[in-house]
């Protein structure tokens, strides 16, 4: 490779390479020097001199060499200073009389975008760095995160920030910027699960534990440090800590024996594996509840002594929102009487993290007043919204549902325990109610499964409704199975009762006047 060097601004033909589009001869610069004109990025000055340096030149660290002792210098000025030391007669190196000509540099690598003079870079240092970064070998490496860099200055810049301020979301994603971290946290799904789990843990743990908060605030376990110290107040430390501790506790089988012994420091050792020195009170409440509430308690229950108290915990935890601080005193407390007072006293707007936002003071005190139903005995299906949706689905599916089914033919619950009680009633009813009841009783009977007295009823309705028993377990099946074409006496009777004549169309079409008028003389 030939050495192409420009040593003087005089662009003689052999010294510089230029494409046809660019002038090589000295060109009067269009603008006067007072203000250095900067071109738009990506658009080099068409009047500029294009200089192509060889890779060797670009990578060379010491471009300026003293002719006397062959010492290399990175900068010309340094070389000059050095030469003075040789006691040479020196004279000031004159600035070239020529006006400064703008130079642009191209990358020698042919495959590079910047090889094209139209995409030349304007700065010598810039082209050197570019060449190193893109086409050079990455010689510098960060120890912490093992990221490699070709340019030393890049490496230095990275070392400044690597690991110094790092935000880690509980879902494992790392952020170097606070704002992106916060944005992420707000919508992180994993975080939502964590907090959901921590709710269950928080059932009895966070409550009336002024200690708890204090303790938690004190050295939180290292794994949590990055995430929590940066962003969250003590409370979220608490919340994020709880699941950690819970999980941390489960594998510690030998230590769990301490769980229920008492409210002693023994408990702290349980959670101390996480480096957490939670207070006894805190841990004692926390531990059993976590054992109870979180899914994988089996390792914890290995301890024989602790097992016995767990069953006690479950019902009380389920209902009682605040266990008192001692594990033993798992009073199914009804702290409800406290609620009115605390409600009226609290300005229970919780503190948000913002400066100046006072709307929401930190809750720990306020937790006293709140009930927690981590384990509400009812399964979620009991919620009104769930029921409504289910009902709507049933309605949609039940194109053949008859009114007969819709009325009172609620199947008995599938709960086995209730079967007998229900069967009695069902039997009783059936004895009273006539064939129509065959249809109605199915509702009861079907859910009951095989109860001798009712098997025939079960069978009959199956044929009547043409569905399988399992389907009728819940109301879904029943209405589906509802005899579309069944016209038992009761059915038509129902229809008549509903129809009430012409009132119908108007009623469902929209309310007309009829509704307003007391058209029920029967009532009076």
């Amino acid at each position, binding site marked *: 490779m030939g050495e192409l060097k420009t040593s003087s601004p005089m662009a003689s033909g052999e010294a510089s390479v230029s494409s046809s589009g660019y002038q090589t001869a000295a060109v009067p610069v269009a603008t006067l020097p007072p203000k250095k004109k900067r071109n738009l990025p990506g658009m080099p000055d068409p009047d500029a001199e294009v200089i192509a340096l060889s890779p060797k030149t670009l990578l060379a660290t010491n471009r300026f060499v003293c002719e006397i002792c062959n010492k290399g210098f990175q900068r010309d000025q340094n070389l000059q200073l050095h030469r003075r030391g040789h006691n040479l007669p020196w004279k000031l190196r004159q600035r070239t009389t020529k006006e400064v000509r703008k130079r642009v540099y191209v990358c020698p690598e042919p495959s590079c975008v910047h090889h094209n003079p139209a995409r030349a870079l304007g700065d010598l240092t810039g082209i050197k760095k570019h060449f190193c970064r893109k086409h050079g070998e990455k010689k510098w490496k960060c120890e912490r995160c093992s990221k490699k860099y070709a340019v030393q200055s890049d490496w230095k810049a990275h070392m400044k920030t690597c690991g110094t301020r790092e935000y880690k979301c509980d879902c494992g994603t790392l952020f170097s910027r606070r704002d992106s971290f916060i944005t992420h946290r*707000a919508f992180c799904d994993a*975080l939502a699960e964590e907090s959901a789990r921590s*709710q269950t843990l928080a059932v009895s743990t966070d409550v009336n534990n002024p200690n708890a908060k204090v303790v938690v605030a004190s050295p939180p376990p290292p794994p949590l440090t990055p995430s929590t110290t940066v962003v969250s107040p003590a409370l979220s430390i608490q*919340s994020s800590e709880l699941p950690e501790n819970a999980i941390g506790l489960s594998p510690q089988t030998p230590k769990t024996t301490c769980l229920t012994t008492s409210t002693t420091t023994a408990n702290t050792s349980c959670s101390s594996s996480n480096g957490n020195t939670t207070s006894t009170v805190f841990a004692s409440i926390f531990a059993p509840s976590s054992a109870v509430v979180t899914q994988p308690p089996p390792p914890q229950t290995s301890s024989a002594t602790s097992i016995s108290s767990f069953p006690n915990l479950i019902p009380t935890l389920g209902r009682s929102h605040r266990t008192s601080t001692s594990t033993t005193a798992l009073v199914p407390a*009804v702290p409800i009487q406290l609620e*009115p007072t605390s*409600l009226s006293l609290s*300005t229970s707007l919780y503190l948000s993290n913002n400066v*100046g*936002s006072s*709307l*929401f003071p930190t*809750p720990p005190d306020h937790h006293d007043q709140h009930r927690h*139903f981590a384990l*509400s005995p*009812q*399964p979620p299906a*009991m*919620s*009104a919204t769930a029921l*409504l949706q289910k*009902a709507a689905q049933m*309605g949609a599916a*039940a194109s*053949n*549902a*008859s*009114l*007969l089914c*819709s*009325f009172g033919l*609620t199947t*008995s*619950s599938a709960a086995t325990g209730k079967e007998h*009680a229900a069967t009695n*009633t*069902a039997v009783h*009813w059936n004895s009273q109610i006539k064939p129509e*009841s065959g249809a109605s009783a199915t509702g*009861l009977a079907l859910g009951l499964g095989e109860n001798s007295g009712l098997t025939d009823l079960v069978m009959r309705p199956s044929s009547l409704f043409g569905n399988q028993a399992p389907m009728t377990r*819940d*109301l879904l099946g029943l209405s589906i199975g*509802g005899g579309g*074409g069944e016209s038992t006496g009761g059915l038509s*009777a129902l*229809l008549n*009762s*509903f*129809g*009430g004549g*012409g009132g*119908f169309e108007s*009623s*469902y079409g*929209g*309310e007309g006047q*009829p509704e307003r008028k007391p058209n*029920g003389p*029967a*009532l009076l």
Partner: protein
Amino acid sequence: MIKDEGSSSATSSPLAFFPALPQSPGMGSPYPSWLLEPRSEERGISLLKVIMTCAGHVASGNLEQANIALEHISHLTSTDGDSIQRMAAYFAEALADRIVRSWPGLHKALNSTKIVSVNEKILVQRLFFELCPFLKLAYVITNQAIFEAMEGEKMIHIIDLNSSQPDQMIDLLHTLSARPEGPPHLRITGIHEHKEVLEQMAVRLTEEAEKLDIPFQFNPIVSKLGNLDLESLRVKTGEALAVSSVLQLHTLLATDDDMQRTPSPSMSAHLQQFSLMNQRPLKDWLEKDPLSLLSMSPDSALSPLSLSASPKVGSFLSGLWKLSPKVMVITEQESNNNGSTLWERIRPTLFYYGALFDCLDSTVPRTTVERQKIEKMLFGEEIKNIVACDGLERTERHEKIEKWSLRLEVAGFFKVNLSYQGLMQATRLLRQSHFFNGYKIKDENGYSIICWRDSPLFSVSAWRFRR
């Protein structure tokens, strides 16, 4: 066999299949145990069915049938039970109230001796504020929007259309005092119908402002929103105006719409759905059970673009527009409860209040008196208003944000996208508080929607008067 409507003989009435059997002697309890179980999804579903049926009766004027249905509902509901039971109790009460209204004299006589305690009302508002996060979240988002809009302003005037909880303004005072350019000169005009509330508010706010050293002035206006005279707000030129409306604007939608009962396109949809009696009544009934009515698409009744005319809201909004507010933040219930017929309203109302009752159920124990108070005096009254009243009396007219945005745009407002900041603050609040579990806030086209487990409940939106 049922031949006549009036027959109330239990054996023949299909409704008698319900366990409310007076003629079941020899049983320990008149009700089969499965009905009384705590775990009774079936009871819930049957409750819903009966409610829908009852509503149908009431809507069509079959009071006799409605009566029977109500009787059966009463056996299933309880104000102490699970959320569906409670809600059903209030719905039943509302339906009954509606029936009674058809005899105006009777209705007046029954209601004339009611003692309305203002303190109870105020207390219930506070309880709602504390036990449910909605108001807090709305305040956070509102305050953030106001704060952002007022950046750099030196004179700020805030009009609070329902100045009931001091917490909102206290928080705003704090944020304003902490801003880098220093606190502004702040005026707050609070509107409420009870003057005790405003007096309290004045005391709290002035004391807080003094602590923070903010030049502050509080102007109370005792008035119902409908009677508000915009002149009395005394908006001065040169001050930046912000309006905060939390669950207030919908009361202005109440109009005397008895005269407006023209068949709308929605009606015809219904007509088709249920088809005319003289055609195939039996078959239709066979095909539809009350629950299928629940499964109708929620907005089939009200097409999104058919806004019911409401002169009051229109004039109010344009009055506000003339005051040139820099920002107006509106929080409203996210539900289309403003159908013109009961039938159109019953389904969205069920879903909406079902979610609200669930919220309370999940955070507050069943036996709490406070919860019952909220349920009865707040939700129950709202349900009653939606179901039983009409015309000017029906003030709980909720509409979803799409409709509100249409109204606001007609009045000349332009949407301001709510910033991430407010949303994140609100989410953080939820996350920090273990008490509020299951609530979500999401951003939809620049509006913030507060949901309970995927059911949208409240919407917050911000508007400005100039592009």
